[in-house]
């Protein structure tokens, strides 16, 4: 299955190319508690990297720090050639436009149609009423949104309200919205966590397929070991706010990852 889904497996942790993401000494302190304790790692472009760790290990905080949805306490982040920490508000907006995020709970606007939600992705590069609702969007934006919906297999549900769709369909709409951004880097925070195993696998296959097609980079959090092994080139393990595991997926196996989870979860 891996070979089929990951036709262009990149060299895990390769340092031969300019990293798409480089993190140095990243810390985050919440209420006196150090959630992230001086993280250092770099990701090569075109890689799919899985971030694993027990609940509370700091995975989601790390993801949010990378785009400054949560402000890091100290450290440096270089992503897509930009020093993220020093970006001013308007520069940060432009930077975030290039980073697609897939959320665990989809985070769609519930009363709007799938098409309107996908069109929201264009707010990465366009502002004003034309980017707010499908009824006001220009023809080319609507056409691009329909293409994104078609890529996730939901062109026929464009007019459906997203709160009438199943969980898997909503996550597909969220992925289509992310594609509408035309991102260069994708962060995925447990995109399979709210879905049943079959649907979760379909969503992960879809996400990885799109990442490979568009030659994007992906950092994905997943608690499902089979997904971690099947849909990543490299695995980073986070424990107590530190990188405790870093290895190419080809060298990993389910038993070793389970031991990591059990050990770090109990720690």
């Amino acid at each position, binding site marked *: 299955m891996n070979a089929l889904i990951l036709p262009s497996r990149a060299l895990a942790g390769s340092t031969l190319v300019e990293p798409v993401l480089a993190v140095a000494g990243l810390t985050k302190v919440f209420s006196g508690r150090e959630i992230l304790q001086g993280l250092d790692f770099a990701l090569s472009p075109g890689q799919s990297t899985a971030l694993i760790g027990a609940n509370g290990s700091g995975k989601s905080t790390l993801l949010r720090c990378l785009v400054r949805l949560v402000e890091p306490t100290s450290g440096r982040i270089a992503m897509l050639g930009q020093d993220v920490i020093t970006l001013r508000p308007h520069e940060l907006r432009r930077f975030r436009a290039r980073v697609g*995020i897939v959320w665990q709970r*989809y985070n769609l606007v519930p009363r709007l149609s799938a098409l309107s939600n996908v069109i929201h992705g264009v*707010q990465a590069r366009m*502002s004003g009423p034309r980017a707010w609702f499908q009824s006001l969007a220009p023809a080319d934006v609507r056409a691009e949104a329909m293409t994104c919906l078609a890529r996730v297999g939901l062109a026929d549900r464009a007019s459906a309200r997203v709160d009438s769709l199943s969980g898997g369909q909503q996550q597909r709409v969220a992925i289509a919205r992310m594609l509408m951004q035309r991102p260069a880097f994708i962060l995925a925070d447990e995109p399979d966590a709210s879905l049943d195993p079959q649907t979760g696998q379909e969503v992960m296959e879809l996400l990885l397929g799109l990442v490979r097609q568009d030659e994007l980079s992906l950092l994905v959090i997943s608690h499902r070991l089979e997904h971690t092994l099947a849909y990543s080139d490299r695995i980073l393990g986070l424990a107590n706010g530190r990188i405790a595991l870093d290895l190419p997926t080809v060298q990993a196996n389910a038993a070793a990852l389970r031991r990591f989870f059990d050990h770090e979860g109990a720690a």
Partner: protein
Amino acid sequence: MTDATLSPPRFRHLGLPSYVVLLVVLALVVSSVAATAPSADKLVRGITRLFAPSGLFTQMVPPDFSRIEPISWKLLETLQMAVAGCFLGLIFAVPFAILATDRLSPHPVVRSIARAVIALFRTVPDLVWAIIFIIIVGLGPAAGVMAIMVDKIGFAGRFFAEAMEETDPGPQDALRAIGASRLGVIVSSVFPACLPSFTATSLFALEKSVRGSAALGLVGAGGIGVDLKVAFDLFNYDEALAIILLMLALVITVEQGSGWIRRKLI
């Protein structure tokens, strides 16, 4: 019977502070009623006078609809005052509500000022606003419209802000992460989520405006209230009853209409 089968006490044990609070509340209620409520004999004498041959009730019934045409035009003016004041109030309530919402306000100081303004507009009764606007723009419906507008900014501003406060932050975070502007997040995420609440509040505001606009004429701010005051001043109680009945019909019609819209939209 074992300990395991013992049921918990029927009433929670109250401590001394709770009894003190209860006693204070009770004393406040009793003293307020004793100081201000009418005595029983005063009430009986009043009701007897009301139904006496020359009493108010006898002079009111049957109602006099002979001036129904001018009264109807005044009733229409009352409705127009309510609609105009309510519409303007709802429009201006939206920016105030945004500025008063924790997550959407640009700065805590701005938020505090917006909340203070909304509280001021809500706390001062619309009759007082009407008197103030009569001084500013003179007698007539314009003062009534202004009074209703300010009252509705206070009313709707508070409920709009609460609705926006209660929305799921997830979609807003997602749009913020996309790089959407603050206005983009508000219009494309917050407003659609708040639409049912906004609609319900707006319809309640319209009902409240119609009820309020009928009374504003009593202080000279236009509408049917002026005619009602004149009818009472000239002891034309039968005409006053006709006006009250027509006002009632208007309020019931608006309430039924807004109830129907609420059921259809929400």
